[in-house]
């Protein structure tokens, strides 16, 4: 028995999976309908059947090293056709959630994010920071309020950039640290593919990685494989719109800063300015994506739609709020700020 592995299920991990939305994981009786109907999973060692068994048997390390859980687009074809109602789609989402929690750096942040009781604290933290910045900039003198409203008086750009640029670099580094911890996990061989397929050396290896990268980017931009999923075909469009909405929003923010620093285009940028147009267009894309009528025309009645989207409420929350913040300053009657 060359790869005889002594197995001892981690009951705690199973409970975590159930808490994170995979509450029906144990209903699976290993019929593999999910692996057969999934249009994305590969022919060799297809997912999510083996993941359901590993989750049901509490094989935490095995799952954390399993790259397949990241290929899943959460289209839920498998959940629709699962004869036992084990909802493989949600179980995989729950496993991914546990991976975040486990590999997040610093680990207290990971645990906090996973624990709903910590939500008020998580919301309070940024508010305190912003308040401190405002206090730092205005020293408590809010007399400018009765004059012409100019943002920079409340929170000058320099303060924003001074805090948020290093802040985002720090976030990126922390994310990288978590990713590296995850990547190291992948090194140790998983029992599924005891000897991971070695990458060919030299030029052919690089070409293979490049081709892989190009194909991935192309698929990301067109959401090709998400459209293959039968059940949630309309969701592919919605996701695409939101995806480009965000990219547009990020580009707008970046261009605005450049415009201000390089071309001395002081805010507020006139409505007719292309950067403003880019910002508004992205907001429209984002909102259209969220309330895409296609979602309703999808195969579900509203009630089933609700329980499908439930685990993703925090994402929805952020999608709706940030475009609102962008749009409302232009729309609200403003005595003359721009």
């Amino acid at each position, binding site marked *: 028995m060359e790869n005889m592995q002594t197995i001892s299920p981690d009951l705690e991990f199973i409970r975590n999976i159930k808490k994170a939305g995979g509450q029906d994981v144990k209903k699976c*009786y290993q019929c*593999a309908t999910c692996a057969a109907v999934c249009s994305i999973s590969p022919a060799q060692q297809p997912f999510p059947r083996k993941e359901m068994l590993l989750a049901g048997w509490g094989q935490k390390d095995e799952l954390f090293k399993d790259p397949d859980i990241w290929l899943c687009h959460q289209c839920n074809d498998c959940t629709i056709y699962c004869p036992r*109602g084990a909802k493989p789609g949600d179980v995989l989402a729950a496993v991914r959630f546990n991976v975040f929690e486990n590999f997040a750096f610093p680990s207290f942040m990971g645990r906090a994010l996973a624990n709903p009781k910590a939500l008020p604290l998580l919301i309070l933290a940024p508010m305190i920071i912003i308040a401190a910045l405002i206090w730092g900039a205005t020293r408590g003198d809010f007399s400018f309020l009765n004059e012409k409203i100019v943002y920079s008086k409340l929170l000058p750009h320099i303060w924003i950039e001074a805090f948020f640029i290093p802040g985002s670099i720090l976030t990126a580094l922390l994310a990288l640290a978590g990713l590296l911890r995850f990547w190291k996990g992948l090194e140790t061989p998983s029992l599924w593919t005891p000897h991971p397929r070695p990458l060919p050396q030299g030029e052919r290896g690089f070409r293979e990685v490049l081709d892989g990268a190009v194909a991935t980017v192309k698929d990301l931009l067109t959401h090709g494989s998400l459209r293959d999923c039968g059940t949630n075909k309309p969701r592919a469009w919605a996701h695409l719109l939101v995806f480009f909405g965000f990219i547009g929003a990020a580009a707008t923010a970046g261009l605005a800063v450049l415009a201000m620093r390089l071309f001395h285009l002081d805010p507020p940028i006139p409505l007719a300015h292309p950067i403003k147009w880019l910002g508004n267009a992205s907001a429209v894309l984002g909102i259209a994506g969220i309330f895409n009528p296609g979602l309703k025309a999808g195969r579900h009645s509203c009630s089933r739609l609700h329980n499908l989207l439930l685990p993703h409420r925090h994402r929805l929350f952020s999608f709706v709020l940030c475009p609102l913040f962008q749009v409302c300053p232009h729309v609200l009657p403003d005595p003359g700020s721009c």
Partner: protein
Amino acid sequence: MAEIKINDSINSDVLVVGGGIAGMTAAIEIAETGRRAVLLEQKASLGGQVATFHQYFPKLCPPACGMEINLKRIRVNPLITVLTLSQVKKISGSPGAYEAEIVLNPRFVNEKCTACGDCEKACEIERNNDFNYGLDKTKAVYLPHLMAYPLRYVIDPKFAADERMKKCLAACKYGAIELDMKPRNIRVKADAVVWAAGWKPYDAAKLDQLGFGKYPNVITNVIMERFASLSGPTAGKITRPSDAKEIKKIGFVQCAGSRDDKHLAYCSTVCCTASMKQAAYIRERYPQAEIHIFYIDARSPGRLEDFYAKLQKDSKVFFHRGKVGKITENPQNKNPIVAAENTLTGERRALELDMAVLATGMVPNTLDEPPPLNTALDDFGFIAPGASQGIIGAGTAVRPMDVSASVQNATAAAAVRPMDVSASVQNATAAAMKALALVSRPRQPADNAGVSLLKSDKTPEAVAV
């Protein structure tokens, strides 16, 4: 339709509803203990589902062999009254004193019919043959099947009023055809009611990802039984419906509908062994054919394990432990392509076949027509054991089960309620003696075991003489 006067009533010890293997067994077994039994069947002939089967597992023996003996036991026993084309309208009362109101739908052929077939030769109208799931046609006047009981023709009510039926009327030399027969109501009094309404196959079209109804070469197990049967639409030849070509590669899709919360949440018990049997049909006709069986748990309990073990020794039979998730079709040759992961090797294959057979499950008929007196059903529609009002379930009305279990269950059903009727055994046996004494006088319907179902000229359904 004029109000039919209830003018006839039958006194009986047991009323058995359903003329399949379970209902027949219950009626015969009770009658052979000297008690009277009335057996109701909705269709034009006894036999139920087993009459449509080609062979039984595990012996691969013909159902007609058991039917032959049971029909002989019915014919020679005056205590059994068979009423076909009959439906229960209402049952009232309680154990020991039930009263059933039954409507006898017109057969349009009376007891003078000798099954000589002249009317069929003269008939010009064709109808879909539901016995073969509509895969072929019969004339408007037809014999239900070769082992039909009563051995008598029947006219499809849709065509009874058609002018062209006059030709069949003329062709009959025995005055057996009566196109103006009307439904008649009768009443049956009995001390016990056995409900053996049986099952029908699950509607495979509801399995949208398996393509039944879309792809011609995807059939169901019950249709395969008709293909294999000599009296089936293809007279025993099993070929592809799309181009009638031979079978080189066939796949059996287990749990098509069963063990599925969105369809039938229970296991229909017989589909595994039925598919193994049908694999034997294929092997008999195509010695070199490749046979694939996709299963989750191969369920051949008890002695049936021999049947599974024998099949595993066949080098061209491949068992894949993994359910077929979806079936697509290769448009060029209309070959069904089944997608399933073999969960032991972790390899998902898309296998192109000549034909795919969906092992669809059993749906109890108690779902569409619930038994009377609000008999308790379980949440799948089967009669719950120890039913409250004394209506006794028998056969697949209680559980999905195979033929010998149905017969065992029906024999037991006959032994439960009617036995502890208030009438003591002496008088019941005496009644039996009186009834059996009738053996010496032919069963003219005049005075048969209290049957006062007089043979008026318009009797659609005399005692099944």
